[in-house]
């Protein structure tokens, strides 16, 4: 009988290429959470999240907003006394969550990431305006208006891209992407 990997093993596998120490070497010292600039917006601190992963609390982890609030500033990684690349772990969790399509409701991150990726695959470049709908509609009236004002100001100063850019060798680019992940016809 084949043993199915536990949740902690799955995450550990996703960290294979991170070149840091495995999550199981965490001594729960709390340096990561003590350093994190965004920790106050996270429901579980980074340390707690690692604890939950190591104990296979998959549902709690996937329902958490912690890794979607990670700014990947890498300060935790640099200070961790057990040599764990915590920021990489946050990326791994984002990927896992998107792959399984399981994440907390109301988070902008997943939809944003998906849109961003689709834009690049389609044109080889990113284009901010197309990302706007992913977050604008979660704003209240006041923030919406503010955002509109900012955007207008930037447009006036010539800082907003008008036309979506694309690279020249787009066909080759798409084939290149296709060799990593076969993608369907992208219209």
């Amino acid at each position, binding site marked *: 009988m084949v043993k199915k990997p536990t949740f902690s093993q799955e995450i550990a596998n996703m960290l294979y290429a991170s070149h840091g120490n495995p999550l199981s070497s965490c001594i729960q010292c*709390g340096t990561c*959470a*003590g350093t994190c600039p965004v*920790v106050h917006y996270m429901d579980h*601190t980074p340390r*707690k999240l690692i604890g939950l992963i190591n104990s296979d609390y998959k549902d709690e982890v996937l329902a958490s907003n912690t890794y979607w609030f990670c700014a990947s500033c890498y300060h935790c990684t640099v200070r961790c*006394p057990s040599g764990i690349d915590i920021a990489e772990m946050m990326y791994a969790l984002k990927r896992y969550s998107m792959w399984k399509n399981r994440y907390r409701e109301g988070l902008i991150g997943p939809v944003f990431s998906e849109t961003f990726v689709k834009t690049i695959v389609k044109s080889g470049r990113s284009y901010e305006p197309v990302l706007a709908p992913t977050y604008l509609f979660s704003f209240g009236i006041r923030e919406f208006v503010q955002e509109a004002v900012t955007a207008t100001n930037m447009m006036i100063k010539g800082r907003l891209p008008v036309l979506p850019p694309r690279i020249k060798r787009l066909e080759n680019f798409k084939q290149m992407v296709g060799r990593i992940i076969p993608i369907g016809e992208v219209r």
Partner: protein
Amino acid sequence: MSEKIGVYVCHCGTNIAGTVDVVNVAHWAEEQLKHRGVVIARDYKFMCSSLGQELIEKDIQELGLTRVIVSACSPHLHETTFRNACARAGLNPYLCELVSIREQCSWVHTDGTAATEKAKAIISGGVERVHHNEALEPLHVPIHPSTLVVGGGIAGIQAALELADAGFQVCLVEREPSIGGHMAQFDKTFPTLDCSACILTPKMVQVGSHPNITLYTWSEVERVDGYVGNFTVTIRKKARYVNTDTCTGCGICWEKCPKKVVDNVFEAGLGKRKAIYTPFPQSVPKYPVIDVENCIYFERGKCKACQIFCPTEPNSINFEQEDELIQLEVGNIILATGYDLFDSKRIPQYGYGRLSNVFTSLEFERMCNASGPTEGKIVLRDGKTVPKTVAIVHCVGSRDENYNEYCSAICCMQSLKFAHLVMERTDAEVYNCYIDLRTPAKGYEEFYRRVLEEGGHFIRGKVAEVTDSARFPDEEGKLIVQVEDTLIGKQRRIPVDMVILSAGLEPRHDAKEVAHLFGISCSADGWFIEKHPKLDPVATMTEGIFIAGVVQGPKDIPASVAQGAAASARVLGRIQQGEIALEPIRASVIEEKCSGCRICNDLCPFNAILFHEDRMVSEINPALCQGCGTCVAACPAGAIVGTAFSNEQILAQIEGLLLINLQSPSRVLA
């Protein structure tokens, strides 16, 4: 084939018998190796037991065995047991070999059939080898009754006193102007809160006045020659520029000295001393030294205040004094050179060196000490403000892959002690920020409970940073300690007035050089390596050199004292015996074959090879040689042979392993 060989196959309970069919193996040996000299082969449940050993002894006496092979566990464990058994029965112990069919067979294979075949091959190898064994006698080397102790901290002091009290001569060498080591810097010691100097100075005084102890302070060992029982040590007695025959230690010279210097050693940089000084008032010996680099006279020929005011007749200050080289003969050496504190500047986010009210543990000890720079008052760097909140940071530079992976053993207790002292002497709130609280020894856990009762706050979290960048009004003008309180899962910012860093212990900056000087090794972390981490923590792989105290690894004062006493007990045992028997497993140079290429000289890890210039040949000192075999392998002319590991023995063993002697078709080579 005139040898009569006895083969004994051990079951070792189920350790061997669970995988290897030992009964079958014994039978096989008796039948198949008969033509190779095996006259008896037995199997037994536990060969190392008294009954097992008696089997061997009986056979030697009754059957006139000339060689013995025991196939059981690793020689590291019981080689001595079986060799002694043979010796008791009248057979030279070196005619007995122990071959491992446990660590190298039953414990590493699961296939029983294959393992059994392999065990047979191993025994066959042993049988072939033992034919070439020679009867050897251990080397007897006299032991000089004097001992050298290097390092005048508590461990060295304890060792020296034990030896001296037993009636033997000790030479104690200390690098600083006074003995006492780090313990002399502390204020109180945990968990009893004894005043450190009060319990240390009686021992220091004993050392200073003991008729059997020759004390060289402000001195270092420069060279070590010889071998166990017969070391010749050269000590450099650095010039104090003070004549110790006439100096009374009155202290007028350092009172009058105009040059103040930051004392980075004893005062940990917190206080000052003069250019002529004794490190602390209770120094042993009482004689000061002149710090040449900071003395005005040595800099530009002026001043001489010390000399002018020295009241003794003749004057005790001698600017022309020179270093003295002293040579002495000792039988054993004990190294107790202690530790250096981790440099907290290596962790910039803790702000040491940048934020003025961040202190290291040693700085804080000096602050608390009544004869320290603040006379025992706990104050900020300005010298007057009493802190209202203090944070104590655990694990600075320890348990951290980025600095030192190991735990420094004493800092948790030290931090608790600091918490207690702060609460005792001020009204301050104290926060201990820790990962784990390591309070294992006698009275330690109770001390922790005491600090809890006294109102100390404990935050379980490793401090992420110490900053002065305030974000909220109550943080203005304070140092902020940012840490996750892991027990409640929140990042907290704690405004404090003073931060104390419990910095870790590190080997001395020149530990590697010192180890090399004495012919011992350091571990990867830099601590000196003991002979066996569990069963022999004070001996080293080099005969005659012992280690004691933190130099062997972080430990508290009771453990250092115990090791100092243990090392001296070992030395006393040697001295009592008057001579030591060394294992005769040694290499030796066949002079006729030696071409004088000297390749072996530098390869020897024990500095055991001398070169005779006149005859252009190398010679191996049998007392220093540990029989590692490096030179034997390295010699291009094959001019070095090892007793008990000669080429004949090794080649014979290989042939035995391959069962060439049997011309057997089944050869297990795994």
